[in-house]
């Protein structure tokens, strides 16, 4: 047997090169099919791993004593009662809003159906770029749908498979969204785009087209929220906070800033996919 490492590796390298070359010259449709097939093939494994983690968590919670659980249940019941009340108020406000909109013939924002999805996998190599969730085509998830957690934007659905979907996070370079800076009285629209995930840097997104005359109030946390104008996200969802230092641009007509994503993004276990009740243009444009 040869001891020369180059000679030993020659065979595998040639095979690898051949596979790569073949992959390059394969028709696009075949490549898409292969990629999709691979995603579907690994989906059960991802699901299984995710469910196993949940089972571990379940037994961990099951080991708590009854009194502790009863107290938590009581707290939960109280919180639920409060939320029920708030829900009634919001339903009433929504009904009034619809009535006024119809009177003014104002455009109605899209209505959404919520699909709650558990996070199946979040790889460390793409921690701030992508997650895979355990809901897919069969559950009604469609490409491009917004994904939220509470009042916080997580990202949007990038690819949909049969039982799983891939979500592009707001810190991903492909993400962009229109936003308002909370507290800016003139409600000027800014643009939020994800930034490349560089090693040894904190995850962030970029806020551009901040009017040059806007100054973040000193010592206050400035939230950046969705505009609701683009037809993708409902208005007022939290994207993150604006860093106090804004950078000047050579044009001088606007400034740029950095968006620190919401803390909830760090440890996502569950998200909600907002599926519009009516198809939106982005579904066919993506």
């Amino acid at each position, binding site marked *: 047997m040869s001891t020369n490492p180059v000679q030993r590796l020659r065979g595998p390298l040639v095979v690898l090169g051949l596979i790569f070359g073949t992959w390059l010259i394969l028709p696009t449709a075949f490549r898409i099919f292969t990629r999709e097939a691979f995603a579907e093939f690994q989906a059960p494994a991802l699901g299984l791993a995710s469910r196993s983690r949940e089972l571990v968590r379940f037994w961990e919670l099951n080991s708590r004593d009854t009194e502790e659980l009863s107290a938590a249940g009581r707290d939960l019941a109280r919180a639920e009662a409060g939320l029920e009340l708030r829900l009634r108020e919001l339903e009433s406000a929504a009904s009034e809003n619809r009535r006024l909109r119809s009177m003014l*013939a104002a*455009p109605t924002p899209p209505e959404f159906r919520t699909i709650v999805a558990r996070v199946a996998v979040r790889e460390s190599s793409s921690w701030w770029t992508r997650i895979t969730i355990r809901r897919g085509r069969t559950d009604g998830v469609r490409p491009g749908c917004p994904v939220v957690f509470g009042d916080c934007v997580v990202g949007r659905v990038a690819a949909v498979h049969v039982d799983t979907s891939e979500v592009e996070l707001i810190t991903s370079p*492909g*993400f*962009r*969204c*229109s936003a308002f800076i909370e507290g800016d009285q003139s409600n*000027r*629209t800014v*643009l939020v*785009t994800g930034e490349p995930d560089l090693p040894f840097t904190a995850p962030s997104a970029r806020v551009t*087209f901040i009017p040059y*005359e806007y100054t973040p109030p000193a010592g206050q946390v400035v939230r950046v929220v969705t*505009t609701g*104008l*683009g*037809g*993708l*996200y409902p208005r007022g969802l939290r994207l993150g906070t604006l860093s106090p230092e804004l950078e000047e641009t*050579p*044009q*001088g*007509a*606007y400034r740029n800033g950095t968006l620190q994503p919401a803390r909830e993004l760090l440890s996502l276990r569950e998200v909600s996919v907002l599926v519009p009740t009516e198809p*939106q*243009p*982005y579904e*066919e*444009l*993506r």
Partner: protein
Amino acid sequence: MIAPKPDRDDSSVTLVPSARSNRSRVLKLTIIGAAGLTYLLLGLVYRQLIQGDLFTNQHERQIRHAIIIPGTRGRIYDRNGYILADNRVRMSVNIDLGKLRGPILREQRRLNLQAKAVNPSVKPDLEALLNQARLNIVQGLLDKVNRALSTRQKPINLQVNAKSLAVHIRDRRTFPFQVVADLGAVSKNTDEMFARFVEQMPNDDVLRLDHEIVRYYPEGESAAHILGYVREHKSVEDTNGTTGAAQKAADLRTQLGDKYNLGINSFTSDKVLTGERGIELTFEGVLAGTSGYQIWERNIMGYTRKLLGRKDPKQGSHIVLSIDKDIQRAAEQLLNSVKDPYGRPLNGAAAMIDVETGEILAMATAPSFDPNRMVGRISSEYYDDISDRGGWINRATQGLYPPGSTFKLINAIAGLRCGAVRYDSVLDCGPFEMIGNRAYPEHTPEGYGPTDLEKMLIVSCNVWNYQVGMRTGIERIAAEAKRFGLDEPLLVSPIDGLAEYREIARGMIIPSPAVKQKREGTSWTQGDTANSSIGQGLFRTTPLHMAAFIASFARNETRTNLTLIHDPGRQLSQKGNEVTGLTAMQRSTFIEGMARCVEEGTAKPVEIPGMRIAAKTGTAEYFRDGQKAHLAWTLGFAPADNPRVAFVVCIEGEDMTSWGGATAGPVAKGMLLAWMKREMPAATPAEEPEEEPGQ
């Protein structure tokens, strides 16, 4: 036995050459080969070593391309920091055609096959097919944009302009092709269009959302004549090289040409804005930013491939004007609301000046125009409309009018200074004054009887001025008018003599025998002196000249060098300035007379409770479209005892129904109220219900 020697056959050919012959041939071939190789080698050496630099140079010049990016213009502020001229981001949608080569070629092939299938005998024009393929692909992408921007209430259907695409391919291939120049123009709701595009369209680098910086005037028509406007040029070359932006870009081209080895045709410029009027024009060199650049390597098709170098443009300097936005707006609103008794809007001008510094606080003119509509392509309808209404003229600086009775102040000063009259002289002023064979009338049939300087100022007595004018003489009257600078160009920097505003009149006339002889070829008469003493006849000056005069008079001086630029530490320029030469008694009589003119005389409409104002009105006659009409004047200063601001208003009447105090007075009052609101809010009276000026 010896074998017979075979006979030599002479006719036979020697098939095997001799070794010598072979050597000779090989040698020849070798020499030829060597010579050939040497020739090639020498050629290679010549091309590579001797001509190498030349070819490298040519190659670089062919593939390198510079895009000049003009700097953003500086902002223009009012004296309190409010923005009068700003830059706004205009969102556009662009397609990078360089990234669509594959789809375009496939589309061309499809069209080619289609054409051959329809008519196999005709060879399709491949160039035409390529153009059609480009159009189809670009329209396909634009259809996506249409779908993204459309709402149920408003469907959007943008179409590609085939001509623009062809021009772009021919001239501006280095740039992406703009399919939507302004997202805001697609629908009224710019923010919604922007948001729909970024959220509905995929984020790729073929169909890009770009932005341009455009000039924006947040106050609309307000101060339009002062600010001027900018014109959008497709490139620096379109500016004829005369503007600040063009000159800066030309300098940059020279530098880049040397540094990056760029040919004369290796430059393309982005859109550039240049000042066309007003401050935008005069301060073009200050406002225009410093151009940046991008040096690109292009592929064989002319599309950009690799960025070789770049420098960001730099924004131009900002300018702070002396204008106070609120006083300016108040003056304009009041001017625009002035109507004659028949409800016709009247043209006019108004100005307010800081007495101590000469800074112009407001300079309004009506009618005006919206400079925002001048950016980009000006519609011919709008241009014609402004022309028909006379909206291009800044009446404050370009309108040449007889000053009418406001000139009586200068006539009186001339009379007092030369001893023709005393401040307490009482003259008998009847209903008219006979000069030569002609009766020069008072403006009341009864006359004013015994009249002194103070009374003259209160009632604006003509006869007093005829008498004093005749005693003083036209030469002294004219000299006094010149002393106050009524015939000198305004808004010229006293430091370098450069105009800080170019739309100024230069044809001011101070009448004198020589002037009359020159202009009309006739001799001076006594009647001309009488007319001149009340600011009629040949007199022509601008409202801003009269404002400068009254500001000077308020300080007891003769010159106010006006400026539109604010400087918090400004000291009034003393160029040409001197004291009026009036005694304290004379001056106090003037001020008392002008103050009483407001309290009980012709300037009553200017009166503001709590503020003593000194003013003088005038109703001059002029010809409008061949018909006699009245010009309504009001000028003055406030507070009367400690002057801080001077003002002037001049309204062009359509006929003889406009009057100095009644028509122009309310505009002056409105300006003063706006000034008081800023400077002494506690003393400002509560707002009264608005009266219709001029009624």
